[in-house]
C-alpha cells in the first residue's frame, strides 16, 4: 500500500498498522488492515459511516484494543511489549509511555464540564506532564490565544458554543505537544455555521507544524486542502488511497465513485451518521 | 461457639413463623399499593386544598420512623379513640401506611413519564377525564414501575422485624424468645439473618432481571 506515496520515502513510518483486525462480537469492523503513516504526514480518512475509519483512530489512541495484529508507534509496539524475550499484552505503564506521543480531538468534544476552560487545558499539563502551575497557565493561555479563546478562560464548557468548545478541545490536545494528533469527525456534531471556525484552526495547525495528523472527516473540501494523502475505507478495508488529486479527480473503484457522487449531491445525513457512530462505540 | 445440634433444634420453630412474617409484608404491601395511588393523584391535583394537606401528611409520615408510628397505633389508638388493634393488624396498617408514601412517589414518577403527547391526543379525541386516566395514562404509567414496586415489597419484608417491637410474633421476635430462654443468641439471630437472605436475595435478583428486561424492551420501543 505504501508504494502509493511518492513524497515521503526517506523516513521510517511513525505509525504502522500490521494486519489489524477488530471485531465487536460477531461484527468485524476492520479486516486485516495494513497502513503506514510517515512523520509529519497529514492523512485524511474518508468513507461511509461504519466503514471502520473511526476505529482506526480509536485503536491508536488505546480506546479500543485490536482483536489481532500489531500497531507500532515510532518504532515501538503500542499494544504489546517484550518481556523475557516473549511478546505479551502491554500493561498500563507501557501504554502510558507510548500514549504520550498521541493526542486526540473527539466528535463530541468531551470537555470536562466541572472545570473552567483554563483548567481543561492545564489539567493534564500539571498532573500528567508535571509542569509547574504557573508555567502550565502560561502555555495554556498561549494556546487559547491561538484558537481565539483567550477571553473565555474562566468560563465553563456549558457556557460556550459548539464551535468554541471544539476549539478548546483542540487547544487541550495541542498543549500536550503530541507528535501525532487524531481528529475524529470534529465538525460532525456542530451546527453548519460553526464548522468553518474549527476547520480554520485545524488548517492553521497543519500549515505551521511538522505534527503528524490523522483526520477523519466528512468535509471533502477540507480534506482536499489539508491532507497529503486521502484514504477511503469501506466495509473495514482500505479500498483506495492516494493524493487528493488522484482520489477526488480520478477515483478508480466503483465504491469510491458512488461515495463521492453522493457527496457532490449534498452533505450526507448527519443525524443518521451520529446514530450509527453512537451505536458502534 | 456455634452449636449445630442446637441450631437444628430451633430451626423448625423459626420456620413456623415465616408465613406470619410473609403475610404481614404482603398485606402491608397491598395496603400501601391501594393507598399510594390516591395519595399520588391528590398530590398532583390542581386544587390546592386537596394537594397541600395530602402532601404535608405524606411528607410527615415519610420523615418519621415507622417504629414510632407503630407505637401510636398500638398505644394511642386504644387510649384516645377507643380502637384496639391486634398487634398483627396494627403492624400491617403501620407498614402499609408508612410505605404508601413511598409508593405514591413511584406512581407519581410513572405518571410523569407518560409523554405530554398522550394527554394532548386524549384531548384531541375528546376523551373525558376518567377515560383518559383509566384507558390512556394509568395503563402506560403502571407497568414500567413494576420492578420498583417489587423492590418495595422486598424492602417491606425486610422491615417486618420492626414489628417485633409491638409484639407481633414474626421471625425476630421468635428468635429473641428462643435466645433469651437459653442465652444462646448466636444461633437464633444468625439463622434469622440467613432466612431473610435466602428469601430476599433471590427475589431481588428476580426484580433486577425484570428491570433489565423492561429497559431492553423500552429501548427497542424507541428504535
Amino acid at each position, binding site marked *: 500500500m505504501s508504494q502509493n506515496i511518492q513524497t515521503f520515502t526517506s523516513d521510517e513510518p511513525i505509525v504502522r498498522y500490521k494486519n489489524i483486525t477488530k471485531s465487536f462480537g460477531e461484527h468485524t469492523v476492520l479486516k486485516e488492515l495494513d497502513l503506514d503513516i510517515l512523520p509529519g504526514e497529514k492523512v485524511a480518512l474518508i468513507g461511509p459511516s461504519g466503514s471502520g475509519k473511526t476505529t482506526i483512530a480509536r485503536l491508536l*489512541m*488505546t*480506546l479500543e484494543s485490536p482483536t489481532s495484529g500489531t500497531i507500532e508507534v515510532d518504532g515501538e509496539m503500542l499494544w504489546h511489549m517484550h518481556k523475557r524475550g516473549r511478546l505479551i499484552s502491554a500493561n*498500563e505503564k507501557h501504554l*502510558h509511555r507510548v*500514549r*504520550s506521543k*498521541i*493526542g*486526540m480531538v*473527539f466528535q*463530541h468534544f*468531551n*470537555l*470536562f*464540564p*466541572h472545570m473552567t476552560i483554563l483548567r481543561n487545558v492545564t*489539567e*493534564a499539563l500539571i*498532573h*500528567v506532564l508535571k509542569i509547574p502551575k504557573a508555567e502550565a497557565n502560561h502555555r495554556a493561555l498561549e494556546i487559547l490565544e491561538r484558537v481565539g479563546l483567550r477571553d473565555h478562560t474562566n*468560563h*465553563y464548557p*456549558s457556557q460556550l458554543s459548539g464551535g468554541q468548545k471544539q476549539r478548546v*478541545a483542540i487547544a*487541550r*490536545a495541542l498543549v*500536550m505537544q503530541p507528535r501525532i494528533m487524531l481528529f475524529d469527525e470534529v465538525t460532525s456534531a456542530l451546527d453548519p455555521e460553526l464548522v468553518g471556525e474549527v476547520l480554520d484552526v485545524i488548517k492553521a495547525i497543519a500549515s505551521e507544524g511538522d505534527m503528524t495528523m490523522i483526520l477523519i472527516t466528512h468535509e471533502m473540501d477540507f480534506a482536499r486542502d489539508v491532507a497529503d494523502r486521502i484514504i477511503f475505507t469501506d466495509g473495514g478495508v482500505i479500498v483506495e488511497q492516494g493524493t487528493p488529486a488522484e482520489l477526488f479527480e480520478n477515483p478508480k473503484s466503483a465504491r469510491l465513485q458512488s461515495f463521492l457522487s453522493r457527496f457532490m449531491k449534498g452533505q450526507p445525513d448527519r443525524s443518521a451518521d451520529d446514530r450509527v457512530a453512537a451505536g458502534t462505540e | *461457639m456455634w452449636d449445630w445440634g442446637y441450631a437444628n433444634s430451633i430451626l423448625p420453630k423459626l420456620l413456623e413463623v415465616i408465613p406470619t412474617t410473609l403475610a404481614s409484608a404482603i398485606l402491608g404491601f397491598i395496603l400501601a399499593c391501594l393507598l399510594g395511588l390516591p395519595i399520588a393523584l391528590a398530590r398532583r391535583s390542581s386544587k390546592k386544598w386537596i394537594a397541600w394537606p395530602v402532601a404535608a401528611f405524606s411528607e*410527615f409520615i*415519610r*420523615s*418519621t*420512623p*415507622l*417504629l*414510632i408510628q407503630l*407505637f*401510636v397505633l398500638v*398505644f*394511642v389508638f386504644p*387510649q384516645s379513640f377507643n380502637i384496639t388493634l391486634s398487634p398483627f393488624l396494627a403492624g400491617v396498617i403501620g407498614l402499609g401506611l408508612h410505605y404508601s408514601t413511598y409508593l405514591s412517589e413511584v406512581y407519581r414518577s410513572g405518571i410523569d413519564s407518560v409523554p405530554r403527547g398522550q394527554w394532548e391526543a386524549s384531548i384531541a379525541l375528546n376523551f373525558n377525564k376518567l377515560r383518559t386516566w383509566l384507558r390512556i395514562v394509568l395503563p402506560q404509567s403502571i407497568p414500567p414501575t413494576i420492578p420498583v414496586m417489587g423492590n418495595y415489597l422486598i424492602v417491606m419484608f*425486610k*422491615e*417486618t*422485624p*420492626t414489628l*417485633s417491637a409491638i409484639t407481633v410474633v414474626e421471625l*425476630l421476635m421468635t428468635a429473641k424468645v428462643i*435466645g433469651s430462654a437459653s442465652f*444462646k*443468641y*448466636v444461633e437464633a*439471630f*444468625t439463622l434469622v*439473618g440467613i432466612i431473610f*437472605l435466602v428469601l*430476599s*436475595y433471590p427475589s*431481588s435478583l428476580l426484580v433486577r432481571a425484570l428491570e433489565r428486561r423492561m429497559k431492553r424492551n423500552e429501548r427497542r420501543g424507541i428504535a
Partner: protein
Amino acid sequence: MDWLSLDLLPPLLKGLKITLLLTVISIVVAFCFALLAGLGRLSRFAIVRAIMSTYVEIFRGTSLLIQLFWIYFALPMLLDVRLSAMTAAVIALGLNYGAYGSEVVRSSILAVPKGQIEASTALNMTPYQRMRRVIFPQAWVMMLPGFGNLQIELLKGTSLVYLITLADVTYQGMTLRSFDISRTPAILAWLLILYFIASYTLTLIVRLSERKVVKGRG
C-alpha cells in the same frame, strides 16, 4: 395545647442529643463504607469485587434490626468481647447504610459519560488520575440526592437502637411513658414532631449543599 406540655421536653431533648450524635457518627461511617464498597465493586480485581459484593448483598439482603441485634447480642458471644450499645449501633447503621450508599456511588460513577474517560485517556492520565480528577468530581454531584435520601432513612433507622437499650430519644420517650401511661399520646406526639424537625433540617442541609456544589458550573 394542654396535652403537648413542655415539661416532657427536657428529658426528650437529652435523648435527641444521643439520636443526633449517633446519626452524625453513623453517617460518616456509612459514607466511608459506601465509597469503599462502591469503588471496590468497580475494581479491576475480581477478588475485590467479590468481597465488596458479598458485603453489600448480605447487608442489603437482611434487615437493619437483625444486624443490630446480631452485632449487639451475638457478635460479643462469638468473639468474647463487650460492645457498648453505642458502638454496636454505629457499626450496624454504618455497615447497613454503607451497603445502600455503595449502590449510589457505583451507579453515579457508571453514569459519567464514556467520553469523559476517553478524553482523560487521550490526555494520558493514569487510571487513578482519571478517577480522581475527571470521573469522581462529576459523579459526586450525582451522588448527593441519593445520599440525602439515605441520610433521612438513617436518621429514622436510629429509632431502632431503643430496642438495644441505647438511651436515644425513643428510649427516653418510652421511659417517660412507663412513669405515666396516661401521657402516652403527648409523648408520642412529641417524638413524631422531634423526628420530623430533625429530618427536615437534614433535608434542608442537603439541599443547601447541593446548590453550593452545582453553583458556578453554568
